[in-house]
């Protein structure tokens, strides 16, 4: 019987095979660190008096609490001492252990899930881990990529290995291609509504089909990024010519193994679960509730809440008395994050905002996912389009996706966001979040209402 892509990559990276009594030990080809979950792991190493085994396979950067604004002298505005201490902890840990670290002023700094792919560090066939749930992003290259906790970060630092039980295999077949104006973000929200917030639990999800093959590399990153919102830690796509072309354009060129194109699921591979959808059925989506599975097509009627969870979400979002979302005033628009802060996302947003202005009742914040994305956008004049429209153009950061760096939405305010989570309080205590694609976010910023 054939093997799935996931199982092939698993096998290639197995140091010690799984038994009923012990999980498998997998070798990690790329370990990414950031300032929120790594310092505690370094403290565990200190406690155990262990060195970092492979600093040459490890890369750190400051992203979660990176400020989006600079003062008149071009210095970053770090809003509190705790953040300064956190950044210092990461940089000094990395210096001590000889790990490259992109801090605020580094020309390649950015969100880990944007930087590793754009530099050409995320590779097909690897195991990639990071203390961040959106590590599933890197699976777009045909890698086993997943988020881990700080204790596991310590284990990987010490041994370059991770203990894992092999998940089951789920494939999502996307037939046909997306209609013009519909993006991978819409596709991800659509699949999430079909699978539900727990439908992927216990599975690695492989995306297949004509609709996937037609996606650009950056769109594939967006789709795999959102896989965790379906309850699955892993989302992956078999490498093809699109993957190779993308890697061939990356800043750091490294040899590509010929065997990469053999990394695909065999036709007779066994699947534990399957979902088939038609891409031409997907239209621009918006979330209405407090997890991404609570989403509808833009313009559709709001669903009547039937469960306690849905009723709570409905009340939290303040939809009482409204049949449709249309017309609701929008206070904030955020375009950015590891989901939708790449150059292609910004180009799409700029095309919508060209020559127009953001509605007076709406604040629009646009944050590139990395310094390289920022530079590229400025070379193309996209920042000018945004500024002339009245939007704020920020420095690379997770920013309003997780609201850790001082960027906040006030209680009760409505934020339309290209990020990945609409959880209660995610963008600030009492803040209400509606997830959409970059094109939809830009249109809504101009209009000022849903």
């Amino acid at each position, binding site marked *: 019987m054939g093997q799935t892509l996931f199982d092939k990559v698993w096998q290639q990276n197995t140091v010690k095979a799984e038994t009923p009594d012990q999980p498998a030990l997998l*070798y990690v080809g790329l370990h990414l660190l950031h300032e929120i979950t790594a310092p505690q792991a370094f403290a565990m190493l200190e406690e155990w008096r262990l060195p970092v085994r492979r600093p040459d396979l490890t890369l750190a950067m400051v992203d979660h609490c990176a400020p989006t604004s600079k003062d008149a002298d071009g210095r970053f505005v770090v809003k509190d001492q705790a953040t300064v201490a956190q950044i210092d902890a990461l940089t000094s840990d990395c210096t001590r252990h000889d790990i490259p670290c992109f801090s605020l002023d580094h020309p390649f700094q950015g969100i880990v899930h944007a930087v590793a792919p754009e530099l050409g560090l995320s590779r097909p066939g690897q195991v990639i881990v990071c203390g961040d749930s959106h590590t599933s992003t890197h699976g777009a290259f045909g890698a086993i990529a997943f988020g881990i906790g*700080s204790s596991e970060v310590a284990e990987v630092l010490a041994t370059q290995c991770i203990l894992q039980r092999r998940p089951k295999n789920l494939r999502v077949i996307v037939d046909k291609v997306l209609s013009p104006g519909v993006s991978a973000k819409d596709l991800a929200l659509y699949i999430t509504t079909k699978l539900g917030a727990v439908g992927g639990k216990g599975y690695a999800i492989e995306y297949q089909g004509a609709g996937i093959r037609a996606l650009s590399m950056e769109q594939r990153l967006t789709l795999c990024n959102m896989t965790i919102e379906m309850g699955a830690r892993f989302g992956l796509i078999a490498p093809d010519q699109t993957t190779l072309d993308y890697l061939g354009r990356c800043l750091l060129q490294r040899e590509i193994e010929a065997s990469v194109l053999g990394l695909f699921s065999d036709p007779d591979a066994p699947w534990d679960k399957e979902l088939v959808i038609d891409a031409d059925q997907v239209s621009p989506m918006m979330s209405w509730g407090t997890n991404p599975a609570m989403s509808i097509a833009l313009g559709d009627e709001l669903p009547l809440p039937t469960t306690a969870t849905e009723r709570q979400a409905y009340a939290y979002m303040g939809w009482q008395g409204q049949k449709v979302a249309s017309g609701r005033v929008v206070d904030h628009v955020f375009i950015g994050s590891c989901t939708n802060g790449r150059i292609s996302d910004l180009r799409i947003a700029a095309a919508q905002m060209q020559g127009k202005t953001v509605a007076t009742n709406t604040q629009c914040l646009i944050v590139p996912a990395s310094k390289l994305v920022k530079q590229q956008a400025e070379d193309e004049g996209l920042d000018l389009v945004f500024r002339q429209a009245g939007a704020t153009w920020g420095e690379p950061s997770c920013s309003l996706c997780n609201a*850790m760096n001082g960027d906040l939405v006030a209680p009760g305010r409505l934020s339309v966001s290209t990020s990945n989570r609409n959880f209660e309080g995610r963008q600030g205590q009492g803040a209400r979040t509606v997830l959409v694609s970059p094109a939809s976010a830009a249109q809504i910023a101009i209009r000022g209402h849903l």
Partner: protein
Amino acid sequence: MTPVTVVRSQSIKLLDEDVDTDQMVPARFLRTSAATGLGACLFYDRRFGLDGERLAGFPLNPPMYQGERILIGGANFGCGSSREHAPWAFKDFGFDVLIAPSFGEIFYHNCLKNALLAIAVDPESHRFLSLWDGLVTVDLDQQVIQAGDVQVPFAIDPFMRFCLMRGLSQLGYVTEQEPLIALFEQKNDQRIVPLSGVGSI
């Protein structure tokens, strides 16, 4: 780490579905490099109102909360972010056991790494335990939850159980695999590509 064997306590219920780790420890409390003292942040925005007032209706506030060590949660408990601050906060608050129909996967593993026993039970047992107000005994050795005359068996990875019962950190286990790791590196030398060039740029 403290070994986990038997935990006996009444249980507190927080039965909402899809409780994410952002709710457990809101992001603004992650501006710390420490893993201690996080109990004060647990469910902060649900325990306290916008003006800092304590919300008496929330189960983790008095008078409802009275030092229980077992929490019965809802489905998909701990979904979302990988922040290990969430289990650290539960432990620091005083919890030793979480029982739910299902857990967010990263959160589940993070719990077991921190002597916080997360147990997934079938919906029927979950319904029963949600309504049970008496003492609950969780026995990891026997893999059973006892509530009155009712026994609910539960499954757990034997490796995790072994580590929890002996208070062993998995860091110790993985470092002992050094000879196998060295052998793998030797055999796969061509495939393991250092991030050369990154450090110098």
